């Protein structure tokens, strides 16, 4: 049953309109700083909610509209997921299975199941709508990258590794992840849809928080050890260059065009920054109120919408992690573009 839990808030320092999307006092969080969990029209997104208030609670998948309406339970016990490029379906993991659920509708269908895997994270899908690239985890902890063909229902194992994180689409036809590729050293790589053609990105001080810079072919990361910068590079470059500098940028996210970046900050938290990628100019969009401590539920993990109309973030400012959405005004964008 659909419900509405939205709470209108205005950031007291920036005046930006912030919409709290979930408010029932159970932990909620969105699906991290990258991925395809916002619908192509940016009107719907999917997020996680604890079912019970205990540390080992089952986690369920919910959808909600960007205006805060239609908060609906999509699938119980589901894992990371992606929305199809036509905006009709959610593909989600559950245990060793891949599920398909209508984005606006009911019912779920199990597309694939294997007892070889304890968990399945469906974070990336090809833009032609044919392939999913699930990150599967074996019971012993080994990681496997799969390619699932939605047209035939076949699932191929691309490679197995001791380390794999943050698998995401690198526009238009490659993948991006931090990984130990077969026969290679650990790093942040782009690679092909066949699980080959690894190209290591020359990030020397990445926080392991990174994202494709929209459709530009570039990749951005924040830097550790007080670097207080966002760096950018692309496959084949010898070194990364500084895109923006001056704040403790923490988790970066890019819109589809690559013009806009959102990043939270820490040590100290100086606000959620909207960054104009081409110029490196930035301003605080809002203050998340996230505690920024050790637990993941205290991190804002901002994700800018593909059309750069809003930023989704998590905050435990009420004592419980909830999902918030901060709207980006045209005035702020105009202010940040060069020449203003």
């Amino acid at each position, binding site marked *: 049953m659909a419900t509405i839990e939205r709470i209108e808030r205005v950031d007291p320092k920036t005046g930006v309109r912030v919409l709290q999307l979930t408010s029932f*006092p159970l*932990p909620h969080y969105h699906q991290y700083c990258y991925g395809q969990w916002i619908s192509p029209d940016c009107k719907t997104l999917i997020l996680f909610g604890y079912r*019970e*208030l*205990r*540390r*080992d609670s089952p986690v369920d998948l919910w959808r909600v509209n960007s205006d805060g309406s239609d908060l609906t339970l999509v699938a119980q016990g589901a894992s990371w997921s992606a929305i199809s490029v036509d905006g009709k379906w959610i593909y989600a993991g559950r245990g060793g299975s891949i599920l398909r659920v209508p984005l606006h509708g009911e019912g779920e269908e199990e597309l694939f199941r294997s007892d070889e895997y304890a968990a399945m994270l469906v974070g990336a899908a090809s833009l032609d709508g044919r392939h999913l690239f699930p990150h599967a985890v074996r019971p012993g902890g080994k990681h496997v990258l799969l390619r699932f063909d939605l047209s035939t229902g076949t699932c191929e194992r691309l490679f197995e590794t001791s380390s794999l994180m943050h698998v995401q689409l690198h526009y238009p036809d490659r993948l991006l992840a931090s990984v130990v590729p077969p026969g290679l050293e650990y790093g942040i790589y782009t690679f092909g849809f066949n699980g080959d053609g690894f190209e290591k990105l020359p990030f020397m001080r990445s926080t392991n928080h990174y994202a494709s810079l929209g459709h530009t072919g570039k990749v951005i990361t924040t830097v550790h050890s007080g670097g207080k910068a966002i760096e950018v590079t692309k496959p084949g470059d010898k070194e990364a260059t500084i895109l923006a500098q001056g704040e403790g940028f923490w988790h970066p996210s890019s819109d589809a065009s690559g013009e806009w970046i959102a990043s939270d900050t820490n040590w100290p938290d100086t606000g959620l920054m909207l960054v104009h990628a081409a110029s490196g100019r930035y301003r605080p969009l809002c203050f998340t109120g996230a*505690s*920024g*401590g*050790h*637990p993941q*539920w*205290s991190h804002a993990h901002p994700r800018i919408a593909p059309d750069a109309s809003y930023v989704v973030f998590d905050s*435990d400012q*009420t*004592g*419980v992690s909830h999902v918030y959405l901060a709207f980006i005004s045209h005035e702020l964008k105009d202010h940040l573009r060069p020449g203003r």
Partner: protein
Amino acid sequence: MTRPETIERIRRDDPRTGAAILQLTSFPLTHWLVGCSGDGITLDGKTLLLFENSDPTRSSRRDLYRVNSDGSGLLLLARNASGGVVSVDGRFAYTGRGGSLVRIPLGGGDEEELARLPGYTQAHVSARDRIGRFLFGQWRREDGTFDVLRFDLSDGRAYQVCRASYVMPVQVHGVNGDRVLASILPVGHEGKPRMTWGYWSFSFDGEDFRPIPFSRSNNHYVGLGGSDEVVTCTPHPARALEVAAPGDSQARVLATGAGFWHVAADASGEWLVCDTNWADVGLQLVHRPTGCFRTLCHTAASGGHPQWTHAHPCLAPNADYVLFTSDRTGYAQVYLCPIPDALKEELRQAAQPSRPVPPV
């Protein structure tokens, strides 16, 4: 226990005093300390016990956790537990459940029932002696009265110290650490009062009851390490800390000038810590020899009627830090505030008692 260790720490600096506070728990369930006496902390101060409401209901089960003082190693030790004491050697946690005394390795692992006593509905473990031989606690009887019990860990036997119709968690105190301190109304086996309610010091065998002459205590008190003295808070309008020893004719004012509320002491007896209320002017570090005090930090605990809104500070045995509870996020969580050496030195050097930093 099946759950793995986890870390929930969040660094929160006090904006007024600059104190580097560490929030030790942050999952949105109610958490609190095992007590103000310090017996729930290892002697080296590196590990401590705390409680969690296992679910968000008023009748929730209470589970015992341990966590390191740097915020690492948060670990569930025992479900459905009551009271908690760490062994002197830091190897075990002791707690009560039903009528039983339970022992759990502090590093985690299988629990062991050391004693099961019939006829009791609840067991609350609250104190240890200095050499690690005895544990003390209050076992609630089916008729609603309590037996103060002493457990001899060397032979596993339980001894009744005394019976009471009312008792606060007992503490071990005294210059030799061989007496029990409690706010208590002792009764005989037939249920009739043996003496009036009050603050009493008595032997491990439940004999030689000596009154502590507190006439305006708020029932929050602590024994001073290395001394027979006991310190208590006196509410409005006195706004003071008072000190007295068993047998004294009257208590003496140790410090005045803030609404001292709950008091705790380190093992040496040199340092005290108090939260304050009406008004809350912050958590005060008090130097026992001079009575000087300063604001260490602000707990942001609501300080209302429910116990979960009280800071209930607890001082580490080595006076390295203060633990407290705060519901600042809407959920009671456990926090740790280190005590800077410079603050201690400032208080040692201070000649006159000082007022706390006023609230902004």
